């Protein structure tokens, strides 16, 4: 099945707040992290918010991209 393509503006709606799902983008893929205890209310370890592209942030995180693999990919990020 073809994955949904998200524009950045669309992704911003999935910020995990007020009942919205929490989606994040990494290297062009959109992951649904709503089920994670560590993404409650769309916030992760104080510094990171859902609804945005975190490709550059992950490089400074104390974990690698392997932790993203446990979450479902729900789409891809469309270049503007």
């Amino acid at each position, binding site marked *: 099945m073809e994955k949904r393509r998200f524009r950045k503006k669309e992704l911003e709606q999935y910020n995990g707040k007020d009942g919205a799902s929490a989606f994040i983008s990494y290297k062009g893929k959109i992951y649904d992290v709503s089920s994670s*205890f*560590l993404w*409650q209310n769309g916030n992760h*370890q*104080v*510094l990171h918010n859902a609804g945005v592209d975190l490709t550059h942030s992950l490089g*400074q*995180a*104390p*974990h690698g991209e392997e932790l993203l693999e446990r979450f479902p990919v729900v789409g891809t990020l469309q270049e503007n």
Partner: protein
Amino acid sequence: MKGVSKMAKVTREMVEKSGVNVEQLVELLVKNAAAELTTYYYYTILRVNLIGLEGEGIKEIAETARIEDRNHFEAIVPRIYELGGKLPENMKNFHDISACPPASLPKDPTDIKAMLTVLVNAERCAVRGYTHICNLTAGKDHRTYDLALSILNEEIEHESWFSEFLGEGPSGHFLRRGETSPFVSKFLK
């Protein structure tokens, strides 16, 4: 931060001047304090259920890790208040903002591999958390860095103990000989 105590005014000012976002740092410290106290609670349940020939062999290190996690909580709290923060008044809220997921008892507590996986994952979350705090404070907030580094040293050893039991390889570490918290004890005196 509203209602910041003037008690440690210069302490906070020095950290702010170093470029650290003190509000974010305090929030991180509170979340990690929550992780320590909740882990202490969940490890109590895990330790109680470590029984039988295999379980008894792990009970000792689970107990050491449990006590040291409580020590970490005790060591972090003063720094939160020094920086103008405070603990949530509601214990349930405190649990729910933890920097690490609950280390819940596996469905089958006689499954020792499942028990060890819960334990090692909890330690790995802690190692990541304190590495993060060290990275944020290195060369800036010396006291928080020293505290986070001391806790990190103990969390790394906890991870290695459980990792060895899972057969992931040798770590070169021994069990504690004597008192607990060899790195963090200086913050508890």
